[in-house]
Structure formats: structure tokens, C-alpha cells
């Protein structure tokens, strides 16, 4: 196999060399526990504080509003369960959308088992939540609305500011799963009116096993992990120091290079979308054409199935995904694609390519050059295509 073409950056990203360099001291001679008292440990503690400040600054938040977690999933679980439990006296109704990540949906389902009620908002054919529908769905006993910043499968960017306004009009907490958006586009929690925001380090070139939750000061939220006094007594457990230092470095780099990255990714994304839709019949872009993550393409190819496309791409050294990476292990088609109205066979036939600032135009060309052949070969094997052709003869 030749060069690896990694187009699965929504599943995870590669650790930046500068991030690894920043981490290394904390995996070698600075392995102290930041809660200890001697100089080395106190230095590490100060480094953690700096990392926190770095992250806070990217969001226009204050340092005490950033809590380190182990991943985006933990951040989502904490935000949703923590607010639901702490505000149960106020009400037991929550609102989310049908296209959230499973970390959100399954946290909601867990609360439903406890007796909470959850409204799952529909989305339109491009994946947008309706601000009006949200407004109507909020009840006197609603305590939390959780809507993602950008969808991990189809890349659609939700109207966060408008949603926040509706939430605050009704005095309801607003949590944003920004796992796919944070460090990929500018986010100002104050300007947008976000109460809680989840992020995950491995989605922006830090290591897996790192994440954070922004919690606006004054938010009533229960602890999720009880124990030691770490994270201002709100999230116990010895800190993943190396990971956190790396995450801060990664976000610093991402923010300083954000504009160029977004431009570069958008160029590649658009080139690929245009070529694929033009050169491959019966193909369609999933998600909005404009309000979408700069690194995300999700294209449905009729009559063929996703996994077989991935395997064919794999043979070319191309890493891609046919839905949410986290749901592999399931045979059901993506709940996101069903929610935007695709029938099952089309939902099964979609391909997600998520590029990065490191993707080259040559990579994009190679994929675009080969995809028509792959689709054609798979269609020639497909009984659905056979039926379609016969019907249209």
C-alpha cells in the first residue's frame, strides 16, 4: 500500500508533533501528582492552571469555568445528568434533537429510565433544528436543552445563538455538544449564550482520553465523579496531566491557525463535493451545503452499501467512515441519516469523508479519481441497481 490518506478526522485526529513534544516532559521527568506539595508537583499544578487558562481564553470563558474530563462522552454525561439531577426540584423535562451523538442520546435515555421526560426534536432535511419548534417544546418543567454545535456525521452547524436566546427567554439551561466544532471554528460562549459546552481533545490533534466541560459560573450542576478535591472539587480523579497539557497546546495551535485551516479545508471539501456529485450519478450531499463544518463531506450513493465502499477505499489506503465511528458495532443505519429523512437503503449507502489541514489537494484528487470506479463496481454487483435499471429501461 502506498501513502495513507486519512479522511476520518471526525472519528479522531492525529496527535500534532508539537502537542506530543509539549506532553513528553509530563510523561518522563515531570510525572508528579499536581495535588502534592513539593516543588515539582507545584510546578505541574501551575502548568495545569496555565492549560486551563489557555482553554478558557479560546472560549472567552474564565478559568474557573473549565473542568477537565476524560472525553467528550464524559462531558456530555456530566452536563446532562448533572443538571437534570441538580434541578429535579424545578422539573424533570429535557429537550434535545434526534441527531445528537449517542453520548447525548443515551444519557437522555438513562434519565428517561429514572422517570425524566425527554423531547427529541425533529430536524429538517438538512439537519437543522427548528428554533420555533424548540420554543414550543419548552414547558414550565423543562430544565435543560442540549443541542450539538455541529453534527458529527453530516457536518450541519446548528443555529446556536438563536437556540440560546430561546432557552434564556424561558430560563432553561443550554448545553452544547461542541465535540466536532470546538477548535475547528471560533466559539465565544458569552456572545452565543452557552451555559455548558462539551469538547474532546482527540478531535483536535490532542490525545484520546482528554476532554473538558465548560460550565458557566452559577450553573446548578451535580458532580458526576465524586472523590478527591481536584477540579475545584467538581470533578475528582488524578488529572491526566500530560493529556491536558497536550490538549492546551493543541487548542492553542488550532486557534492560531484556525483561519488558514478552515480556508484550506473548505477548498478541499468543496472541490471534492463538486467533483463527486458531478461525476457520480445518483449521488447526493447529506447535510447543508453552506452551514457545514469546513472539513466534512457526507455523500449518499444510491444502490450501494457503505461498508463495502469503505473496504474498497481501504484497499487504496483511504481511511473513511460510513456513519458515526462510535456506532460501528451496530447494524442499524445511522440515526442521523434517518432523521434527515433518508430511507434505510440510502442511509446505508452514505460515505463520510472528513479532511483536515493536512489533507492535500493530491489526496482529494486521488479519492475523486477512484470513487466513480468503486461506485460503479459496487453498483454492478447490486440487486437494487439491477432492479432500478430494469425498471427504467
Amino acid at each position: 500500500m502506498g501513502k495513507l490518506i486519512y479522511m476520518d478526522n471526525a472519528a479522531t485526529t492525529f496527535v500534532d508533533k508539537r502537542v506530543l513534544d509539549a506532553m513528553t516532559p509530563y510523561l518522563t521527568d515531570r510525572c508528579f501528582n499536581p495535588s502534592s506539595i513539593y516543588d515539582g508537583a507545584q510546578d505541574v499544578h501551575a502548568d495545569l492552571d496555565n492549560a486551563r487558562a489557555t482553554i478558557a481564553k479560546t472560549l472567552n470563558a474564565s478559568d474557573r469555568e473549565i473542568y477537565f474530563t476524560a472525553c467528550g462522552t464524559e462531558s456530555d454525561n456530566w452536563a446532562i445528568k448533572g443538571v437534570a439531577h441538580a434541578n429535579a426540584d424545578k422539573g424533570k423535562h429535557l429537550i434535545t434533537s434526534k441527531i445528537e451523538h449517542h453520548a447525548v442520546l443515551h444519557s437522555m435515555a438513562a434519565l428517561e429510565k429514572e422517570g425524566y421526560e425527554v423531547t427529541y426534536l425533529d430536524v429538517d432535511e438538512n439537519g437543522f433544528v427548528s428554533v420555533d419548534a424548540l420554543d414550543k417544546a419548552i414547558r414550565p418543567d423543562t430544565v435543560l436543552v442540549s443541542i450539538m454545535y455541529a453534527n458529527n456525521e453530516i457536518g450541519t452547524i446548528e443555529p446556536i445563538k438563536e437556540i440560546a436566546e430561546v432557552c434564556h427567554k424561558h430560563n432553561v439551561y443550554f448545553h452544547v455538544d461542541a465535540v466536532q466544532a470546538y477548535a475547528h471554528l471560533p466559539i465565544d460562549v458569552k456572545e452565543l449564550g452557552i451555559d455548558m459546552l462539551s469538547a474532546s481533545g482527540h478531535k483536535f490533534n490532542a490525545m484520546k482520553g482528554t476532554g473538558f466541560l465548560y460550565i458557566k459560573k452559577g450553573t446548578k450542576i451535580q458532580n458526576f465523579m465524586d472523590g478527591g478535591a481536584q477540579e475545584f472539587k467538581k470533578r475528582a480523579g488524578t488529572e491526566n496531566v500530560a493529556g491536558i497539557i497536550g490538549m492546551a497546546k493543541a487548542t492553542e495551535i488550532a486557534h492560531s491557525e484556525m483561519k488558514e485551516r478552515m480556508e484550506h479545508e473548505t477548498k478541499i471539501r468543496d472541490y471534492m463535493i463538486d467533483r463527486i456529485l458531478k461525476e457520480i450519478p445518483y449521488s447526493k450531499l447529506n447535510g447543508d451545503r453552506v452551514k457545514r463544518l469546513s472539513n466534512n463531506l457526507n455523500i449518499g450513493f444510491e444502490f450501494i452499501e457503505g461498508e463495502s465502499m469503505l473496504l474498497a477505499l481501504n484497499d487504496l489506503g483511504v481511511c473513511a467512515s460510513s456513519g458515526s465511528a462510535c456506532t460501528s458495532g451496530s447494524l442499524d443505519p445511522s440515526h442521523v441519516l434517518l432523521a434527515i429523512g433518508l430511507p434505510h437503503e440510502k442511509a446505508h449507502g452514505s460515505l463520510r469523508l472528513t479532511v483536515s489541514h493536512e489533507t492535500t489537494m493530491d489526496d482529494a484528487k486521488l479519492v475523486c479519481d477512484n470513487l466513480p470506479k468503486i461506485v460503479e463496481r459496487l453498483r454492478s454487483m447490486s440487486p437494487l441497481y439491477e432492479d432500478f435499471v430494469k425498471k427504467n429501461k
Partner: protein
Amino acid sequence: MAYSEKVKDHYTNPRNVGEIENASGVGTVGNAKCGDIMRMYLDIDDKTHIIKDCKFKTFGCGAAVATSSMATEMVKGKTIEEALKVTNKAVMEALDGLPPIKVHCSLLAEEAIHAALWDYAEKHNIKIEGLKKPVNDIEELEEDEF
């Protein structure tokens, strides 16, 4: 997917892909909801009941393609009676196994052969000993409740 080398070989270079014009029997099983649809074409010698040729078309994952491919290889040249003994287990074994969540693909391959044989039997108005009416035909393509 942790596919065996044999599975990889069969989905990368599937054997017997295609249609048979005026096939003796055709069977289609599976549904788009679970993501796998298989269609088998059989060319059967009416006298000897030997399966002279077998082709398939499959919409589905790597395992679906590989099991279809392997199943066609295994029934080709066999009599109907022998072909009925090509179980999903036999297909899986011939492929050096499948990941647990993909076992259903091998069941589908078995079903597809049976469906094609059933079609043959119906067309020729014969009864094939031990063959039951296939149940797993394409279901209505309908959407799940969320």
C-alpha cells in the same frame, strides 16, 4: 471489522458476480433496513439436478459480499440435494469465520440459495425434499421509529 484473509479475498475479488439470463431459479433475500440484500441466480440441469452455474448480486457489507461469493463457489457443481447441505456454518467455516455481528450475513447466503431453489421448484412444479419456503424475502422498505 476484523475480517479473515479469506473474507477479505472474497469481498475484494468476489467470484460469480452477475446475472444469469433465463436462470432456472432466482432468489432474493434480506432487506435494506438491516443493510443487506442478496440475490442468487441458479442454472440447474433439469435432468441431473446439478447446479451448472450460480451467480449473485449483493447490496451489503464486506461479509455479505464474501458469504455470497463463497456460497456460490460452494454450490456450483453440486446437486440440489448436496447444495441444501451448504449451511451457513459451512460457509462461515470456509471463510475462516466471521465477526459475531456479521454471522447473519452467512444465514442470508444460505437463505438466498434456498430461495433460488424454491423458485426453481415452483417453476418446475416439483418438491425438493427438506426445502422450506423462504421467509426472508425483501421486506417493505419502511422507516424505523427513532
